[in-house]
């Protein structure tokens, strides 16, 4: 993600609205009401207003924020922003707008960046750079980090720095040891919860892929992983069970990085192992599904461990600006 994208998105929205007349000359613009109207935090709005003022599109009014420049703008006119069509759309890269001021969309992005970095070492997460990167307040940053802390993805060192990594072979093995106990249980509980037609469709996709000649792409592999390890696990009625499984799925991280650095390899073994789980789920055999999944997880762990070792000869890839290497 490019730096400061959020404030640019706000800046572009306001700029466009002013050009189109949606925000006519004289309209008063203040950071807090605008942030509330756009459902984003104040800091990107403040930056966007400053940038628009620098460009002369809006004028600063001491003590009253800003007003839209143009003919007839001699004093700020207060208007109900909720009556005005102001919606942040997806950015040019197709990413969704930050619809909530919350930590939620940022959390996923930060979690993904952390996972991409930790196979290559230990990193410190900077609260300041993270806040500036997303244009969010320190409160939001701390929300994000405390949730990552809850998922055991970051920790605090003795100097109270946020630390992440390394994803060691031992960490991978520890996660696997737990996962092979819990995930088969989740999947066996999910039997009867996932509609039979959906299960049949997932199994059919596997059959077609196994019969097909072409090697799979990484997005296709991700989709097969999601069918079994997300959709079916999430269907387990015990929410705690499903939530516990997710942070343990470190093998997927290793496999995706391996695909990036080395290449996508024949996924035949993985597909066949998945299919066996669905075979058991379709006939309602919980014990069989659990056993088949455990077999798959063990095989996947062997593959991930070998792949992690290959990744270990590389230096860190380009990591996010808010991550800095410790060692």
């Amino acid at each position, binding site marked *: 993600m490019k730096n400061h994208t959020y404030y640019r998105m706000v800046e572009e929205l306001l700029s466009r609205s002013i050009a189109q007349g949606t925000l006519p000359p004289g309209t008063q613009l203040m950071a807090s009401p605008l942030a509330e109207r756009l459902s984003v935090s104040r800091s990107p709005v403040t930056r966007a207003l400053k940038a628009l003022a620098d460009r002369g599109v809006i004028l600063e009014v001491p003590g009253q924020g800003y007003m839209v420049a143009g003919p007839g703008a001699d004093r700020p006119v207060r208007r109900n922003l909720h009556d005005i069509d102001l919606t942040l759309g997806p950015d040019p890269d197709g990413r969704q707008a930050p619809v909530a001021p919350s930590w939620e969309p940022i959390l996923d992005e930060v979690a993904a960046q952390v996972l991409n970095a930790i196979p290559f*070492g230990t990193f410190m997460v900077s609260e300041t750079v993270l806040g500036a990167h997303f244009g969010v307040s320190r409160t939001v940053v701390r929300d994000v980090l405390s949730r990552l802390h809850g998922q055991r993805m970051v920790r605090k060192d003795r100097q109270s720095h946020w630390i992440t990594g390394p994803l060691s072979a031992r960490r991978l093995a520890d996660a696997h040891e737990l996962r092979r106990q819990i995930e088969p249980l989740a999947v066996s509980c999910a039997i009867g919860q996932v509609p039979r037609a959906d299960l049949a469709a997932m199994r059919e996709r596997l059959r077609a892929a196994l019969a097909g000649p072409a090697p799979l792409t990484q997005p296709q592999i991700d989709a097969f992983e999601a069918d079994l390890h997300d959709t079916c696990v999430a269907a387990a009625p015990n929410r705690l069970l499903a939530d516990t499984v997710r942070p343990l799925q470190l093998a997927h991280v290793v496999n995706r990085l391996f695909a990036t650095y080395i290449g996508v390899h024949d996924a035949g073994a993985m597909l066949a192992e998945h299919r066996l789980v669905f075979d058991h789920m379709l006939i309602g055999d919980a014990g069989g599904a659990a056993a088949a999944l455990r077999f798959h997880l063990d095989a996947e762990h062997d593959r991930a461990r070998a792949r992690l070792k290959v990744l270990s*000869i590389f230096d860190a890839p380009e990591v996010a600006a808010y991550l800095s290497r410790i060692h």
Partner: protein
Amino acid sequence: MVDHPPLRVIGRSEFLPQTIRDRARAELPFPITFELSDSIEGLQRVVSRPASFDVYHQWHTVDLTWTARAIQPIALERIDGGAEILAAARARIGDTGVIDTVFDRLFVQPDGRLGSAPAPSIAMLPCMHGVDSFAFHEDLFTLIDRDEPHSWGWLFDPRWTGRAALLADPVLGMIEAALATEASERVSFADLGNLTIDEIDQVVDTLIRLKRRGHFRRSWRNYEEAAELMRRGVLVQSMFYPGFVRLQRGGMSVHMADPIEGMRGWHADVCVSAATGGRMLDAAYAYLNWWQNGWPMACLSRQGYYGTLPERVRPHMSAAEWAYWYGGAPACEVLPDPFGRPAVPAGHRRPGGSHRERMSRARVWNAFMDEHTYLMRRWQQFVAP
């Protein structure tokens, strides 16, 4: 053959000295480019860009290159002496020690993994192996008794602080440092070739403590640098056998240790890129078979290495050379190094004895450990200025 594209070969400088490169170019009917790489960059390229080379002289990296599918199976039926390799593999079933890991992950199993069960194709052509330890200068005997048993603990011994050195390579360096830590700190590690995070910490903490006291002169990257350090006054240090032969040739009074804790074993083999096909693959097989003819390994045996098929090597050595290098007998005359220059003095005897005796002293084999990422980071803390 003028228009034949060159066969692109990657390997370490120790495995491909000038004599080998010249002779291969002269004897094979196609051009060859040799790229010597003594660092991790060579391996990074091999696993991430198989199309950039045809042949790779692997060295404790076959599981990485195989996992990355950077190399392709080699058909034994296309290898001169393929049957001898099969026979050697079968003969070692039930055997322990000796040339152990050379055959452990050699054969391509039906499920695509590597294993020891003989099969029609192999991941690498077994080529050479050896055991390494450390070297010490004759002057050491002014500080210790001549009959004190050699020990890896000498690398950390405070009696010669400032006059010790280690190699810079993290994979081998960590193994040697772990051997020295065991001997000097009175601890023992479950698997020296695959240390846990806690054990790595213990070894590196010991290294850093010694470094702060000024124990190590510096570290070296290849055998030339190792020999140079010894010439500059280092008393005890890690040593590759070719470096030792180089020092012998220079007339230095230097000894290769036969440590009571055993030695560090290694093997190096020839692999073919997964991306090589057509007439380049034919050329690759011709190159592999050239290594099977015995002459190249006779050449490298003169720097202390052993060929996987010694009987193919023997006709290319004199009786005196054979008795010294493989038989463990005292040199009955001055013996040459790989370049034909006189090196081994008459009367010298290899520490550890014959081929078989020395290989059975392998305590641990070179290996990328499971925790290599962690090992690398901690090792860098040690070697950083």
